[in-house]
């Protein structure tokens, strides 16, 4: 399993975007789910990720923003967004994670000069399963932020194609 790099390599071309990626995600959870995301004290792994929301970016920035977590975390997101009990959550889980990802992507690009107008978002997609990897066609740089949502890991990743 790949450890999530909490401190980006100094040579990364867009490392200054990492705090914005984190802030964009935090704001979505605070405003739409009413909860604070917490920085983990130990490195996180992708071991518990079995659902991933993805939104494509095209234009001035081309890439994919994804948010991965486990199914319990995704169900809790849906529960908080819909204002219903956790055990009442059904097929809305994927829709909820997709929307969280969509809002995080939109909020992120709106924080960067030139991207708000110059970058379009795709509709969100959601992958579920127990053993999958997401590969880009070309080797691309990526930014990754690990956060805890109600003590459950949340991996936010921005793959940058161009």
């Amino acid at each position, binding site marked *: 399993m790949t450890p999530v790099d909490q401190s980006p390599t100094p040579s990364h071309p867009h490392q200054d975007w990492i705090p914005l990626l984190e802030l964009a995600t935090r*704001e*979505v959870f605070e*405003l*739409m789910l009413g909860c604070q995301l917490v920085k983990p004290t130990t490195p996180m792994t992708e071991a518990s990720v079995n659902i991933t929301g993805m939104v494509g970016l095209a234009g001035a920035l081309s890439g994919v923003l994804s948010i991965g977590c486990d199914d319990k975390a995704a169900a809790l997101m*849906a529960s908080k*967004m*819909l*204002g219903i009990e956790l055990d009442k959550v059904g097929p*809305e889980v994927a*829709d*909820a994670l*997709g*929307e969280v990802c*969509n*809002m995080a*992507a*939109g*909020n992120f690009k*709106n924080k960067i000069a030139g991207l*708000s*107008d110059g970058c379009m*978002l795709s*509709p969100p997609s959601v992958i579920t399963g127990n053993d999958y990897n997401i590969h880009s066609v070309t080797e691309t740089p990526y930014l990754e932020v690990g956060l805890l949502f109600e003590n459950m890991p949340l991996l936010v990743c921005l793959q940058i194609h161009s």
Partner: protein
Amino acid sequence: MFLPIGDEYSLMSIRTLIVDDSSVMRKIVDRSLRQAGIEMSQVFEAGNGAEALGVLQANRVDLILCDINMPVMDGLEFIKQLATVENATGTPIVMITTEGSEAHVVQALACGARGYIRKPFTADQVKEHVIPILAGKL
């Protein structure tokens, strides 16, 4: 609808159409409106602009809240098409979308939207944008 009493408003029940391809987001918008103190006698939902036009062919509403990025027919095209629906003449439209760029805001307002709320949002932001519109102040 909304009767101005000094700086306050007497809230009367309204019929609302919420247009978003995410059913979760439609429910969040619904809940935000209720949290904002807006009483709704009827809430119609549509997953895209084309569905929304269908709803409006058969029903009159007092307020439309609409996403921009949707499959089949997006929010901007929906506003343009709205002029052809007799039931929707003069109905205020508020866009609720992740597309927060200046260009999108200008485009939406030019197409006839009366307000623009950027996702993520709070119930208070919904209230700030929607109540003045319902009260006829915007």
